[in-house]
């Protein structure tokens, strides 16, 4: 559809002047976005550029700052949207996790939404034969062939994605019939990350079918090849601002990368003096115990790690080095901490640690703890801390055995050890006996870090260690990890999709794409933008 045609009809959805502040952080700054009927708009930008926040404003999760306006088919809808209101004004969302019930059949997943939102209809009996026919017709309309009675969890990833899109499109179609409006917009948030290249095209066929029915589509992705091939227009966000709104054909991938990365200033490194202070403070808690034979620290080598996307990955981490592993979702980077800890079994690979060669394929958490490998998992609520335990119990969990002597459990020693850690890791409020769940995200994360650091690890594996952590605590965590690494010469692997963070804390960063290292950045060459550029370029070349 040409630009000229769009101008004549009112856009299906138009956002004007949307801003969103999170404390000191301005996630969105006067963003304008419009999606015409039958138009596919790409939304691209680095991690943290505001894409998610914008989507969350559209879905009613976030309340934008006053002054932001939303027009649907030319009519203003007051912001913020109430939960569930988005679907009443013709917006439908498909997130990366697809929100399908894996244990239910394709048919049940297709009809589920209508049943739940159905009001009085929710009580009317279900005629499964009729539902079956109807669902078959729906799939036909989008030219998707699926067995209606198959369990959704057993479908190939691409078929799950297609089903989710068909379901969302069907919701929109019902909305148009019910309300008599012509407009509707489908928002696709990273729908292609987990799909093999050849399947992406199948997904596009479904999107084209949706567009042919008159819906607009907002397509959010890191995959610039996909963005260029399916979208009519591309909107580029950087630091919460729209920096480009261009016809998709007008720019090649390199030009898009340049727009996405821009020339944003690199954040200043934290003052060395401050780090030295932190190191002095942490020393008594994390310095190697007397039983440590090799005070000099040890380097770590990973050889030929094979699992899923990783096909023979090898790299080294020096003693006291913080190595960053960067990669977009689906690159395989996010699996590394769990595989190297044995939390998930890898196919095979060797981990060399202090003169010992461990088989990664048969690593277990027990073994890893004995070898003093530490894992700080991304999902601290489920994997990291017992939320209903008292704070001290979480902090000393790994060293309890050392305080059970001669049939007596020296609880007092453990509590004072925990109090010391609470003080040194600046956990607020400093209440050892408070229930862990009552602490803020940042303080919980510090406690999790303390739990592992007092066990004096030789290799520290971090996955998204500052996710859901406020800015202050984030800086503290950087400081603690840096000084602990320097102090006890432990090797650190830091995995996150927050590239700015990697640039700030890491000595060296390896960029992964499709499970392969595609760039190594150090020193002057290590910056947020350099990492993003490498990650985006590689995805392009892989296609």
């Amino acid at each position, binding site marked *: 559809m040409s630009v000229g045609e769009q101008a004549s009809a009112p856009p299906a959805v138009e956002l004007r002047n949307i801003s969103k502040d999170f404390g000191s952080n301005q996630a969105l700054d006067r963003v304008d976005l419009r999606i015409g009927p039958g138009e596919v708009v790409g939304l691209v930008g680095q991690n943290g550029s505001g894409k998610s926040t914008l989507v969350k404003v559209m879905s009613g999760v976030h309340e934008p700052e006053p002054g932001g306006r939303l027009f649907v088919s030319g009519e203003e809808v007051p912001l913020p949207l109430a939960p569930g209101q988005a679907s009443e004004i013709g917006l439908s969302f498909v997130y990366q996790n697809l929100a399908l019930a894996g244990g239910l059949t394709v048919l049940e997943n297709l009809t589920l939404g209508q049943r739940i939102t159905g009001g009085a209809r929710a009580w009317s009996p279900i005629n499964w034969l009729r539902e079956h026919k109807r669902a078959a017709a729906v799939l036909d309309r989008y030219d998707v062939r699926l067995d209606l009675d198959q369990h959704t969890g057993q479908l190939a990833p691409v078929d799950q994605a297609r089903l989710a899109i068909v379901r969302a499109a069907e919701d929109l179609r019902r909305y148009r019939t019910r309300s008599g409006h012509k407009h509707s917009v489908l928002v696709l948030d990273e729908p292609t990350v987990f799909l093999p290249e050849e399947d992406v095209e199948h997904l596009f066929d479904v999107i084209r079918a949706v567009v042919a029915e008159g819906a607009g589509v907002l397509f959010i992705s890191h995959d610039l090849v996909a963005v260029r091939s399916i979208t009519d227009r591309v909107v580029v966000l950087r630091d919460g601002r729209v920096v480009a709104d261009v016809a998709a054909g007008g720019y090649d991938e390199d030009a898009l990368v340049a727009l996405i990365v821009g020339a944003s200033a690199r954040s200043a490194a934290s003052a060395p003096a401050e780090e030295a202070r932190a190191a002095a403070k942490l020393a008594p808690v994390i310095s190697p115990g007397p039983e440590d034979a090799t005070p000099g620290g040890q380097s770590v080598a990973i050889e030929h790690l094979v699992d899923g996307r990783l096909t023979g990955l090898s790299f080294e981490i020096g003693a006291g080095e913080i190595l960053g592993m960067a990669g977009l979702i689906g690159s395989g980077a996010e699996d590394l901490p769990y595989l190297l800890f044995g939390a998930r079994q890898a196919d095979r690979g060797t981990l060399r640690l202090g003169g010992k060669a461990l088989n990664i394929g048969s690593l277990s958490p027990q073994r890893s703890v004995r070898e003093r490998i530490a894992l700080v998992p991304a999902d601290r609520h489920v994997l990291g801390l017992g*939320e*209903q*335990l008292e704070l001290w119990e979480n902090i000393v969990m790994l060293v309890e*055995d050392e305080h059970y002597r001669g049939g007596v459990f020296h609880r007092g020693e453990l509590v004072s050890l925990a109090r010391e850690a609470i003080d040194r890791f600046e956990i607020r409020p400093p209440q050892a006996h408070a229930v862990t769940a009552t602490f803020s995200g940042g303080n919980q994360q510090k406690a999790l870090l303390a739990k592992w650091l007092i066990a004096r690890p030789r290799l520290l594996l971090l996955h998204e260690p500052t996710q859901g952590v406020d800015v202050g605590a984030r800086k503290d965590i950087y400081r603690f990890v840096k000084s602990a690494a320097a102090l006890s010469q432990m090797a650190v692997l830091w995995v996150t999709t927050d590239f700015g963070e990697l640039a700030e804390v890491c000595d060296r960063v390896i960029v992964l794409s499709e499970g392969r290292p595609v760039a190594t950045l150090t020193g002057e060459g290590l910056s947020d933008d350099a990492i993003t550029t490498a990650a985006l370029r590689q995805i392009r070349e892989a296609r």
Partner: protein
Amino acid sequence: MSAPHGAAAPPEAGRQEEPPRRAGRSAVRRLGLSRYTIVIVFAAMVIAFGIDIPSTFLSIGNLSNILGSQAVLFILVMAVLLPTIMGDFVDLSLGSSLGLSAMTLAVVNVQHGTNVILACLAGIGAALVVGLVNVVFVVYFDNDPFIVTLGTMTIVQGVIYIISGNNSVGIVSTNLSDWVFNNDFLSIPLEFYYGLAIFLVVWYVLSFTPVGQKALVIGQSREVARLTGVRVNRQRAWAFILGAGIAGIAGIAYAGTNGTVDPPAGSTLILPAFAAVFLGATQIKPGRINALGALIAVYFLATGTAGLQLLGTQSYYQQIFYGVALVAAVTIPKANRDRIFKKKRSA
């Protein structure tokens, strides 16, 4: 873009300065008394019954009756405690294990004339087999403990009917009754002291060893325990096996107390045992299943029932008393309830 640094931070940022939730506003909570509510009600109840019916309620005979008559239940409570504390919320088969142990003992002793000590060992052995079967199907095959133990409970009950021929079996050896029930120390039947000994061991292990602390972590979150290097499944397996073994001992105490064993013996005890465990979880360490709380709960319920009986009410009011006490104890301190039942089942 799963973790944009701007978007992820804010919900937490607001909480940054917020202190941990206050325990509550009422005087009871501020003084930390909610963890002793049952102790307080217990004391009030003893005083009330003592004033009302001093001659019967405050007698040695009554004390002996209360402590002795509940010993079987008390031992079973210790058995129930072990899997429950590790998050395997209900081992329903423990009541049947008790019954199987008692019936095996009776059948081996009476019908085969085996020495009573060997018969006791046979009873405990039979209970251990049930525990092992539970381990295989719950821990090894990773099934829901409620469903599996519902199955094993039913199977074991069937086995009890088969080996007993659906008859009550009397016990020949009076030695057993002597050593369990008839002999006393300080006017209290010996079985009370057996229960006390088992309690002391369980209490020590759960409260004063790293194993007990790990059990607590497993109960709170199996994944956290696993990723901290705890041998989660091994410890769960031991809980099922030792729980079954203790239930077997309870079965012997049951046989010694009653002299005869009825086929449905254990099935009437298992629900009161769970009631005591959960009631105990509101006490001493609120929100945590703990041995001391369970001890208090058992004898609180027993004392209440005994008092009501002395006042002339029918014995079946016991059930109503149990039920009311349990529901009230978990409901009144809401904070405690949340900590017991809102636990994350992440595995």
